[in-house]
């Protein structure tokens, strides 16, 4: 797996956190083509979001009172059919949509 960087960008309330929660559950369940050899140490942020989705609700907005949320999520992944490959890292800082909008406007 070559090193690549993917950035998740979007305005307020477009569904970034909800998407991230679904990605987490997909990787955790090890039923897709991308799996995690071991779960990350701190999964509080994605678990809080997933708690809403798995009970039939959308996750609430990220904390808008701080410009850059302290929540972030990092997980090592590898291809399900390539268990001997070195894992790659997905790092997702949970930046609020307001910050992206501010960056666009200023």
């Amino acid at each position: 797996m070559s090193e690549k960087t993917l950035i998740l960008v979007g305005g307020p309330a477009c569904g970034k956190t909800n998407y991230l929660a679904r990605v987490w559950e997909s990787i955790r369940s090890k039923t897709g083509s991308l799996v995690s050899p071991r779960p990350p140490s701190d999964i509080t942020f994605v678990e809080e979001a997933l708690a809403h989705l798995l009970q039939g609700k959308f996750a609430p907005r990220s904390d808008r009172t701080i410009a850059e949320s302290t929540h972030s999520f990092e997980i090592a992944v590898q291809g399900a059919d390539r268990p001997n490959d070195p894992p790659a890292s997905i790092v997702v800082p949970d930046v609020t949509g307001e910050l992206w909008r501010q960056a666009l406007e200023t």
Partner: protein
Amino acid sequence: LSSLRKTLMAFNEISQGALNWNEGELPDQLTQHTELADDRTAGFLHLRLRHAESGEMRDFLLPDLPGEWTKSLVDKDRNDRLQFLKRADVIWLMMDGAQLRDEARRLWAVHRMQMLTERLRTMIGTLPPLVLVLTRRDDGPVPESAYDDLIEEAHRYGCQLSVVQIASFADDADVRPGFNVDVLMEACRSKPATATPCWPPNDEMATESRAMLRYRSASNDR
């Protein structure tokens, strides 16, 4: 109960709420919420039980842990104070049966238990037999379809998982308090170790090439 231990005092203390009734009304809590003075050391209840029919003795060392410890294990992988689990012969995974009966909460409850099992597997390595203990059976049985994802995932990782539905208390006349607790205890019965002979039979040694074993075999033939 063949022997009493000091831990029974603590057991009595946490179950005291179930003995105090408010003129026929249920108390808010039947047992105390577990709070530990030392948040790094678990409290244990030691019970030595004797089987009424076979006379077999069995020791149970049951930790009484705050649920928050499990939550921090799942959310933050905090396992430093749960290292004793590595020595467990059986691990009971306790789940609120009411959550599994409720379709709105079931997916989340199953997901959290899957995460807990994964944390345990990461921490311990090869897991001992697991028993999924579903509580509140007196409110109704949990259908197998509600927990078959847990069984499937456990088997996928080579874990042995059995399921017991219990009722510590009972509102339902059809289910008595303590329902299936005996089944739960029986599910933890260890299999007898395979006996190995202290000395191998002589005839297997007759062809030995090592001098000492040849000598022993020859001396027995005299």
